[in-house]
């Protein structure tokens, strides 16, 4: 717990995007994604404009393109699904490079790829420019139930601890000559998972008792009451408002 709570996705920096309050950024990203999803899929150029907007934000936040693109790989399973779509969808068909494809399916695949990629890119930018603790505080300021935010906070704080515990158990298995190769070894792995559950639950009980002994009654004290100024809200709103303009253009044209 001593090494700071910077998660691997966060890139420390001093850009104007980093300086914005977290709840402004969360609201902006949510608004942006909503606008993107509401855009008609036939307006291909609109999605290009959205990508340009995100690239501008990334440049302002000094997030390198390579980092952003590597994080986009998380989308790969759904890309596979999208690639299948032109082959299975119904409707009029067309021939591209000798393949018999459905027009509706092609549009559907494009729709998923474009909107999904933009959504992932926006989330990655948010996570890369916002500290974890700030992110949780931001969620709380956006009126997410405090208990839920607390649970999420505990999950994030102890996620690394539990993952490390799992890693230690794996090393212990390896050092005793065990190597999981197939279904026959599931019993051992499941026993590890069971042990992990017991350890996690007992750790939860200990954490609870430690907190109670320090005066915890079920709510966390609010330490900083930073509120966003009008300028900060305006800056954060620049992204969704620009996107909204593009979206309206997309509907009218």
């Amino acid at each position, binding site marked *: 717990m001593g090494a700071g709570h910077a998660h691997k996705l966060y890139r420390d920096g001093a850009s104007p995007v980093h300086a914005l309050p977290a709840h402004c950024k969360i609201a902006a990203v949510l608004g942006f994604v909503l606008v993107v999803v509401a855009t008609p899929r036939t307006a291909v150029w609109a999605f290009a404009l959205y990508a340009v907007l995100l690239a501008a934000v990334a440049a302002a936040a000094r997030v390198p393109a390579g980092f952003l693109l590597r994080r986009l790989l998380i989308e790969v399973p759904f890309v596979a699904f999208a690639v299948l779509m032109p082959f299975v*969808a119904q409707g009029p068909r067309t021939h591209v490079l000798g393949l018999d494809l459905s027009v509706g399916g092609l549009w559907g695949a494009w729709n998923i790829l474009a909107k999904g990629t933009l959504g*992932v890119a926006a989330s990655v930018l948010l*996570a890369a420019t916002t500290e974890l603790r700030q992110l949780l505080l931001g969620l709380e300021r956006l009126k997410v*139930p405090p208990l839920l935010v607390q649970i999420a906070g505990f999950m994030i704080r102890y996620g690394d601890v539990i993952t490390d*515990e799992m890693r230690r158990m794996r090393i212990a298995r390896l050092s005793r000559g065990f190597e999981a190769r*197939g279904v026959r*070894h599931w019993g051992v792995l499941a026993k590890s998972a069971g*042990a992990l559950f*017991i350890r996690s639950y007992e750790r939860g*009980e200990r954490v609870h008792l430690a907190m109670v002994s320090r005066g915890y009654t079920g709510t966390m004290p609010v330490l900083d009451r930073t509120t966003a100024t009008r300028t900060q809200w305006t800056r954060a709103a620049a992204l969704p408002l620009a996107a909204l303009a593009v979206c309206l253009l997309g509907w009218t044209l």
Partner: protein
Amino acid sequence: MHVPDGFINAPVSAAAGVVAAAAVAVSLRGARRELAGAGTGGGTGADRTAPLAGLVAAFIFAVQMLNFPVAAGTSGHLLGGALAAILVGPYTGVLCVSVVLLMQGVLFADGGLTALGINISDMALTTTVVAYGVFRLLVKVLPRTRRSITVASFAAALLSVPAAAVCFTALYALGGTTDVPIGKVFTAMVGVHVLIGLGEAVITALTVGAVIAVRPDLVHGARDLARPLELRTAPLAGTAPAAAPDQTTADEPTPASAPASTPTPAPAAPRRSTRPLWLAGLAAALLCAGGLSYYASSSPDGLEKVAHDKGLDSKTEAHAAADSPLADYSVKDIADPRLAGGLAGVIGVAATLAVGTGVFVVLRRRKAAATPAADADAPAPAPAEQG
């Protein structure tokens, strides 16, 4: 498989978001109750919820990274909905999986922000609720042993994953952005997820078995199994105070010093009354027999139908009881065929029940006569159902 943005259209996403928000609100309330009763310390629940649910969420998050090798190269991992429901209860389960999904969406960009509602109602709500429902049902029906807990967890996890696939297909049918035929989506999703569910079921059952072997009190679904400590005094008073070898509460020190003046608070307490189960079964059977047969097909038996269609039954002779008042599942002197069928069903249920109960009562009386102290824990006779 997390649904990204743009996969399901906006209205259905918004509706799923409302459902998910309601589910999370309800489970926040329920989790407080569930976690208050857990463990040894008697907290009020409000202050226990956050640390315990948070750590369980961290556990689910971690265990999703545990790879289970299937065959050369490929491997699967646990989804965790069924496991969470069985280990910590349905409300906490929904809550923890939802928090995991929320964090995956916000932090790791896994699953779209606008599709969060869909992901929660699909992967957190459906899996957990289905798994817990199946689990409770099986635990009620099966004998009260550890093995049946394992069997019930297997079945619960097995069904929970295809149920999520069905839920996803339903959402896709409502708001899919591509007109892929629903039949194809359904077959593909359910087909793949039955296989995934099989792996999930094996892992879940093994994991629950591992936990129940060490800390059975931590398994929420097996809480009924824990019987209060039972004092058995030896015939020679004061010499051998044998404590019942119970699984869960065996670590409590038994008041072994005074077996003669045992302050036992009603040892008959753990025996649950079977009356609610019996009444519910009776009601269900009567409903099926009387109500549903009203809507049943007029040729319910597939064999009879085929036989009739193919002319196989032209030579069948009338049954010996063909002119009984209840022949062919309908009452004789009532003109309306549906009403007659329903009435016959009700009468049939009543008769079967009477015979079954009679046999059961006779058997129990004989058993009680043989061993006076026998535990009359035999299950109630399953009420017969026949429409």
